[in-house]
């Protein structure tokens, strides 16, 4: 058909077009949100509550709600995730039990967030009687990010060469000491990166909190963990789909989207920087 050289040229041209399309998507989305949202953002927008049936004012309660969700879910998911990862990577032997645990984790990772929402609704809100609340939503989000944290921590620990563990054990050091003194210090940057990435995930999730406690409109800050709350992503959804005056509140919508995006991408950026920093320092 074509000579190998010509085929190569054609193929490479197609591949280049593909990557350009992908990059195009990114730039388009970002530029729309940024150019349209930047005008809406002001100090007042950030520190005031919504006013006038959400057609004016700011998004402060939503920001606070999101922060609460992050703190609540991470407080649960982080310790459990890291401990599970330690077990799976450092203690577990290939075997049926471990296989089952691993499958469970990858299935949790693949389960749609709306299903987590249903579960949270049935389990935390109803069955355990937490009601629609920060507590129920945080626990639900904790389940959503648990597999992410486990996987990231496992991966970070797997980069620690097994020779180091053997060396430590051979010095008469116990397994747990070896984990604490050798494995965890080396794996820490990777684990931190994983944790930060899951913070981004928590900040952006909507469906689970929709079912477990996010308030349509609550212009005050929540009093306790069993209170309902506003959150940025849900707020954006509400404004964009069922607000009082969808067309005229566009600037507020763009502004909210931009703030949400900045939080999520900012957090990701920090994670990437940490990863890069330690990648350059580590070498075996």
């Amino acid at each position, binding site marked *: 058909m074509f000579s190998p050289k010509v085929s190569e040229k054609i193929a490479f041209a197609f591949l280049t077009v593909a990557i350009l399309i992908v990059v195009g998507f990114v730039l388009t989305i970002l530029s729309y949100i940024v150019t349209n949202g930047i005008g809406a953002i002001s100090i007042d927008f950030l520190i005031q509550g919504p006013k006038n049936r959400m057609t004016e004012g700011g998004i402060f309660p939503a920001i606070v709600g999101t922060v609460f969700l992050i703190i609540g879910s991470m407080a649960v998911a982080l310790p459990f995730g890291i401990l599970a990862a330690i077990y799976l990577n450092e203690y577990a032997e290939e075997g049926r039990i471990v296989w089952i645990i691993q499958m469970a*984790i990858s299935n949790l990772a693949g389960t749609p967030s709306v299903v987590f929402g249903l579960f949270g609704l049935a389990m935390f809100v109803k069955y355990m009687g937490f009601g629609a609340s920060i507590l129920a939503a945080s626990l639900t989000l904790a389940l959503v990010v648990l597999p992410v944290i486990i996987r990231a921590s496992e991966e970070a620990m797997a980069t620690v060469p097994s020779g180091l563990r053997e060396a430590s054990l051979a010095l008469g050091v116990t397994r747990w000491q070896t984990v604490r003194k050798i494995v965890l210090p080396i794996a820490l940057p990777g684990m931190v990166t994983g944790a930060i990435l899951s913070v981004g995930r928590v900040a952006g999730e909507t469906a689970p909190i929709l079912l477990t406690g996010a308030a349509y409109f609550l212009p005050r800050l929540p009093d306790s963990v069993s209170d309902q709350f506003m959150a940025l992503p849900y707020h954006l959804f509400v404004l*964009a789909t069922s607000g009082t005056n969808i067309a005229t509140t566009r600037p507020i919508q763009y502004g909210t989207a931009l703030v*949400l995006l900045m939080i999520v991408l900012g957090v990701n950026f920090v994670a990437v920087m940490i990863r890069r920093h330690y990648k350059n320092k580590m070498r075996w």
Partner: protein
Amino acid sequence: MLINTRSKEFAIESILLAVSALAVVILILISIFLFREGAALFKDIPFLDFLTGKNWHPTSVPPVFGLLPLLLGTLLVTAGAIVIAVPLGIASAVFISEIAPPNVAEILKPIVEILAGVPSVVYGFFGLVVLIPRLQQLLDLPTGQTALAGSIMLGIMALPTIISISEDAISSVPDFLKEGSLALGATRWQTIYRVTVPAALSGISAAVMLGMGRAIGETMTVMMVTGNAAVIPGFPGGIFAPVKTMTATIALEMGEVPQGSEHYHALFAIGAVLFVITLLINLIAEAVKRKYRFKVGS
């Protein structure tokens, strides 16, 4: 001291095992709650009727709970997303790991990661305010809120999953394999499609499966861009018409249903079906990864 150290070690290991087992417990709890709440529906409505029902009229009297329009809606949107995301994703992955100079690749990778970071509401919002009007105008449709809009947005959202997992798989093909091919006088492209990509195939397939999983499970975006009309989509015309997916149905309707009602249970039944589908996809992805895991350099 002796007994002490040992029992301490044993205690630690037991605790760690218990924590890990939590993952299994959660999965089981999810199944129990979904199936229990969902099963309540089938006291009145035969399971098969639910599964094959062609109409979803939860608020009519008497309500009709037929899953088919929602299921097909989900499948249509997902299929569209895959058609968009798979070629673009694999091509991009090949480009990043095999063609781009290292410094360009270092720029492209975080750009793709941005796609992964953008929250789904933001995608939905973007689709709603930017994509939909344009689609409507361009294709001259009554509404831009169509399956196509959903597919495009989900396609974009599935891209980072497909790209980054494929890229991992491709770049973990050892250099010495590629050098072996080049040294035989193969061009770079021949090397890519005859050695590198086949060697990475397991990882790429897993990437496609996981991308698909992400698309099926996505809620907010589809809810915001597909119009949410619970009708069985025609083909190919349905692509350009509104559809309602399973996830969107749950998220949209749960807020308005009385707890314990038939409708409430029906939504859980949808959740259970969704859960089973994603479970299957995950199992297949795992199996693919395992089966085609190639052993290079022993």
